[in-house]
């Protein structure tokens, strides 16, 4: 198999309050055609004005991925007819992009970034019973387009790059990066490198809407292109689309791809001029980026590489960790609970941690209860799940659900005695010296008490009862 040479082209929706060139809201999920005005509908006589917030966000991303910010850039018109494009052209950047020549490190390899520019999103089309319905809410939402150099050499590396970039836009607070909502969209360019290092014909795959789709499309293309070459067939310079069900790439109609966009400078907008001071101001105000958060977690909290990586998967999770770590110093325990139980519950409810009522304070209270032995880890899981649903304090939940620990010596003693009486075979094994069967008795007792027995006290009584009869 020949080596793959891959470049990505990403479109990232910015989380600005208003659209790129008008004052309409950018809120996702609003009723169709509720966030529209004369300007984003391209009504006759209207003119665009640049959203400063979008410009700043573009600069933030440029700085975060080590790009040079161009002090002068400008907008162009990309002309083509399509019903999702009300003006008949898209306002985008072309010859003088906002930002150029950056890189992002992925698994210790530098993936160069060619350019980052600003543009406006198109409307959304719905095809229904031979009719086309248009929702213009998306039309005019600010996008940054990020183009990499063809430095990526495997589908996994492409996925890793995307994940990193998603983390960065999340940490910068400039995009949700949600591929499932179209906030992050990916086109890939892929060719094969021959034995002499020469590049083969480039194929573009458009509209990949999940990490999985990116990986599957690239895997499919690598196999397809290798097979063609091994049969001495030519690879066509095509634009493909990805069929997510069949997991194959399909050529798009040439009509959709052969276009002369007649780019020319947008005469309705002025040159974008950005001063060194403005760039410096944005640089100084950049929030912590995933990479430095990662190092900080390892350095300050002595977490493992793996834990750190998990915690930076989203800014909200990192915030939750940081707040918890401020009031509780068993960092490893915090990290473990976040990456196991909290993630499990979030996946189940399809929510982000911010969308649950769980507070770091209550979370830590629960961890302390476990530490003090007042509840078992098992009960802790139940309590946490409840806290993530209701936001109640752990004690409240324990009381309401009868999860308060049994620490009554008499009650525990009678349970222990009952277990010993009911399991003579195991008792004799234990007493013959095979002490590692002790866990069995603990398990039985926990089963009987629904995990509510105070584990330390139980252990003490259990040991006493098992051992005392031997002596007696």
């Amino acid at each position: 198999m020949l080596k793959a040479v891959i470049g990505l082209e990403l479109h990232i929706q910015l989380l600005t309050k208003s659209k790129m060139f008008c004052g309409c809201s950018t809120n996702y999920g609003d009723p169709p055609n509720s966030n529209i005005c004369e300007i984003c509908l391209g009504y006759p006589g209207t003119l665009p004005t640049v959203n400063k917030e979008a410009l700043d966000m573009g600069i933030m991303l440029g700085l975060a991925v080590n790009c040079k910010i161009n002090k002068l850039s400008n907008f162009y018109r990309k002309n083509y007819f399509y019903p999702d494009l009300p003006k008949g052209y898209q306002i985008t950047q072309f010859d003088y992009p906002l930002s150029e020549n950056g890189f992002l490190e992925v698994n210790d390899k530098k993936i160069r970034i060619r350019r980052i520019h600003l543009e406006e999103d198109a409307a959304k089309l719905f095809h229904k019973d031979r009719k086309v319905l248009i929702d213009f809410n998306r039309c005019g939402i600010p996008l940054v387009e990020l183009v990499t150099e063809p430095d990526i050499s495997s589908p996994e590396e492409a996925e890793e790059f995307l994940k990193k970039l998603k983390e960065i836009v999340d940490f910068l607070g400039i995009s949700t990066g949600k591929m499932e909502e179209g906030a992050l969209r990916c086109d890939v360019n892929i060719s094969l490198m021959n034995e002499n290092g020469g590049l083969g014909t480039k194929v573009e795959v458009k509209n990949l809407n999940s990490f999985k789709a990116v990986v599957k499309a690239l895997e499919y293309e690598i196999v397809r292109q290798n097979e063609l070459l091994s049969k001495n067939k030519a690879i066509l310079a095509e634009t493909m689309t990805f069929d997510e069900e069949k997991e194959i790439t399909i050529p798009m109609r040439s009509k959709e791809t052969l276009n002369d966009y007649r780019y020319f400078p947008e005469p309705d907008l002025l040159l974008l001029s950005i001063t060194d001071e403005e760039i410096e101001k944005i640089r100084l105000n950049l929030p912590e980026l995933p990479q430095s958060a990662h190092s900080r977690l390892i350095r300050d909290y002595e977490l493992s590489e793996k834990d750190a990586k998990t915690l930076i998967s989203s800014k909200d999770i990192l915030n939750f960790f940081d707040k918890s770590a401020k009031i509780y110093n068993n960092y490893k325990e915090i990290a473990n609970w976040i990456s196991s139980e909290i993630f499990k519950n979030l996946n189940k409810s399809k929510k982000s941690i911010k969308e649950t009522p769980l507070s770091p304070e209550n979370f830590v209270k629960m961890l302390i209860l476990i530490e003090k032995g007042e509840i078992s880890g098992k009960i802790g899981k139940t309590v946490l799940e409840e806290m993530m649903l209701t936001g109640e304090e752990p004690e409240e939940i324990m009381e309401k659900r009868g999860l308060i620990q049994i620490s009554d010596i008499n009650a525990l003693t009678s349970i222990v005695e009952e277990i010993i009486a009911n399991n003579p075979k195991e008792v004799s094994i234990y007493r013959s010296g095979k002490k590692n069967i002790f866990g069995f008795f603990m398990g039985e007792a926990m089963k009987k008490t629904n995990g509510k027995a105070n584990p330390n006290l139980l252990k003490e009584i259990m040991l006493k009862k098992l051992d005392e009869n031997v002596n007696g």
Partner: protein
Amino acid sequence: MKNKGSLGILNFSISELKTLYKNGDLTTLDVISAYLSAIKENEPRINAFIEVFEEEVLKEAERLMKLKSLNLPLYGVPIAIKDNINVACHYTTASSRILEGYKSTYDAMVVKKIKEAGAIILGKTNLDEFAMGSSTENSAFKLTRNPYNEECVPGGSSGGSAAAVSAKEALISLGSDTGGSVRQPASFCGVYGIRPTYGLVSRYGLIAFASSLDQIGPIGRNLDDTFLLLSVISGKDTLDCTSLDIKNYDELPDEDMVGNFAIIREFENISIDKEIAHKYEEIKKILLKSFKLKEERFPHFNYALPTYHIIADSEASSNLSRFDGIRYGKREEASSLEEAIKLSRTAYFGKEVKRRILLGTFALSQGYIDKYYKKALQARNIIRNELSLILSESDFILAPTTPSLPFKFGERKDPLEMYYSDIFTIPSALADLPSVSIPVGLSKSGLPIGIQIIGGQLSEKKLYKVCKLVAEELNA
């Protein structure tokens, strides 16, 4: 007023009306009624209007009559608006069938400003479709006739706005000037027309023809009225990024004269109508009393016309892409999206508009953009620099407004011949400079002649002074 004869009313200037309003000699209703009857009487011959807001203006006149906010700069002034400028709740057609049925949802910035200034909008005037033309013959709806001779065109593209003012169907009007579309019809109809410095007036709400050239400009029967209207519509608009950072007209510089008037040899080498040439020489003599005439060279003048057309048509090809029949205007039904767009544009754009879209599309196409569009941008810069050099040593440049007298309908069939009408108005448009067309008299055949004065950027106040001087000398 004792004698309220409507002809009397139609002859009053804005300042005269103001005094009469103040003294209680006239009401806004008197004035609007007089103009409405003038429209009724003249429209069958002139056809300046596409739509007259008959009922609405009477109500508005009554409202203003009660309001008595006499200090508003345009209180009770009847005005006509070119139909490529949006007026909320009214049809805006740009004289194109493709916009049939399109009702504006908002007021253009200039409309907002004149409404706030107390003006009464009489209606929308005819134009060459999408302002592309120099005779208003390219209107999809009607032919507007020159009030001085009904066999002649009123000029264009703001032919309706110029004819309405000239025929006393409106006191003042708004047009738009991309390469001469205010000044040339003003000249043909014997009225004043101003193309302001690019960016002095907001374009928000003007249906774009060529964004980097379009400017809205005022038309009037006397100099003061025309400049007063300019002062009302001037000023920075945050909705138009290309509008200049001048808060309002009062903020414009009021510079002293250098004392030089530039006469351009390349202009004088153009063969023009003899009577226009004669008037031009006459104006030179008037100017000599106050200025030193300085002969200048404008080496790239010959490139102005092609440069203009390449840039204007390139921008137009993109600006007119939005007219696809999907969201507004007329749509041809078809079996596919592409087909619907194609059929609608084929059916409802006129011939000249199609020609320009094709030319502009060609000039921006791969393989040609360097040769045409980019080259034209370079040429535009050279022309800008040459004119700015001339204006660094002179206050103004003198030029005829048009090379010929108003021509007859159907006379200019060759588009190139038609384009030639704008030969003298295009250079200042390319260079973003303000220029005024002044009516300087009639030909022996009774057709109006206009002379143009071009000033430096934002020199409108100075331009007013020199125009005043010329106007007074002509009247003396």
